[in-house]
């Protein structure tokens, strides 16, 4: 079997492509600045605020929103919900790209990026939760890569290797869920070491659990959101099965996400009670906390429920976007907004334009890579030679 689609497709000069081109050039300039003048030259980071949006957004949000990979593959292969099958490949691809970009973003944030393999291969600081995160992200990136390869092998016509990898799918899925449980929760546990710096409303012994639970509905919302984008812009890549199953996937995940989000709200309530943090609710921090939990978790949960009851796809898609914004808000609250809450306003952090630009650049890279792969490999459609794997 020859290549499914050619490698080189001549890019068209559309407005979308022009904007992407501009962002990529800007990103390149920022990259050169970062690696010649240092982190201090392009960021607003300082000694009090060592982590900015490159960690708060690129790492924390990136990992949470890439959770769609483990959620979808677990539903399909472990829980046996076959109707999610056509959603698995796009979800795995998004997850793989998400994690790859997280690692790329780390190269900007780390002082000595070339030493990134040190914690795993050279000097293991096992008492650190960051070690846990690093090890699991490294292993999970490998798992995602292997899970993604069948699509590439089909594209390249390598039948034998593909057959071997397909046999490993269940094992890889279980590994994926274990590794995701570990590092999603450990990202929350990173902040367990700073009870004195993180506002009590966000600091909790349940932080790892909050991060893990919220990653589930983050992943589901991303699958729904990404599905709606793909429907709009990549519809000619989809086959009949994908189109037929797509709304079922959206309603199924909407229902599941709604339930999990309600459970998440319940655990937040328990967290308040356990630490006796009720009195903070009356402060401005409390308002902000309620804004996050009620406005960006409970509210979209109800929207999801209504959308799934009434089979209203538009409502489900809207709720998905709202939930994703809520996840971003939550991760930024923990890593930036409510972090160092005790410092005077002058010592607080706000990202610089170049920091935001770099983050936009990295997200854009992801979009470009997603489009490159989906327009070539059998992601949104099944390869005619390998129906019903």
């Amino acid at each position, binding site marked *: 079997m020859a290549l499914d689609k050619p490698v080189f497709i001549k890019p068209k000069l559309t407005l979308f492509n022009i904007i992407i081109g501009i962002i990529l050039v800007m990103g390149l300039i920022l990259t050169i600045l970062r690696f010649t003048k240092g982190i201090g030259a392009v960021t607003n980071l300082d000694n009090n605020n060592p982590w900015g949006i490159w960690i708060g957004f690129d790492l924390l949000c990136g990992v949470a929103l890439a959770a769609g990979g483990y959620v979808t593959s677990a539903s399909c292969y472990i829980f046996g919900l076959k109707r999610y099958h056509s959603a698995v490949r796009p979800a795995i691809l998004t997850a793989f790209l998400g994690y790859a970009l997280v690692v790329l973003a780390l190269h900007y944030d780390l002082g000595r990026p070339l030493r990134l393999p040190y914690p795993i291969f050279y000097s293991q600081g096992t008492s650190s939760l960051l070690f846990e995160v690093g090890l699991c992200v490294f292993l999970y990136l490998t798992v995602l890569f292997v899970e993604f390869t069948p699509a590439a092998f089909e594209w390249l016509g390598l039948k034998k290797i593909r057959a071997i990898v397909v046999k490993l799918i269940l*094992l890889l899925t279980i590994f994926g869920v274990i590794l995701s449980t570990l590092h999603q929760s450990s990202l929350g546990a990173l902040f367990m070491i700073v009870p004195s710096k993180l506002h009590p409303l966000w600091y909790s012994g349940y932080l790892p659990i909050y991060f893990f639970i919220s990653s589930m509905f983050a992943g589901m919302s991303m699958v729904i959101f990404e599905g709606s984008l793909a429907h709009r812009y990549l519809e000619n890549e989809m086959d009949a099965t994908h189109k037929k199953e797509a709304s079922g996937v959206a309603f199924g995940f909407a229902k599941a996400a709604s339930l999990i989000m309600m459970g998440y709200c319940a655990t937040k309530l328990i967290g308040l009670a356990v630490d006796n943090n009720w009195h903070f609710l009356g402060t401005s921090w409390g308002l902000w906390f309620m804004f996050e939990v009620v406005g960006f978790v409970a509210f979209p949960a109800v929207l999801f429920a209504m959308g799934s009851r009434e089979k209203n796809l538009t409502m489900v898609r809207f709720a998905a976007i709202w939930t994703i914004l809520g996840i971003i808000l939550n991760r930024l609250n923990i890593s930036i907004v409510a972090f160092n809450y005790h410092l005077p306003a002058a010592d607080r952090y706000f990202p610089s334009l170049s920091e935001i630009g770099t983050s936009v650049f990295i997200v854009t890279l992801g979009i470009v890579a997603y489009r490159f792969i989906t327009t070539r490999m059998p992601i949104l459609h099944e390869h005619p030679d390998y129906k019903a794997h």
Partner: protein
Amino acid sequence: MLDTIIYTLQDFMTYTKGITYLIMGGILIFMPLFWYFLTGRE
């Protein structure tokens, strides 16, 4: 390592967690194999 004294919780955590990570790796390899053994005759 067993002969030396561990004076701080920090060193204790580093040491014990190092061992548990190795055990975790072992579990992840052993469990699939055991599953194949368990269901081998089906």
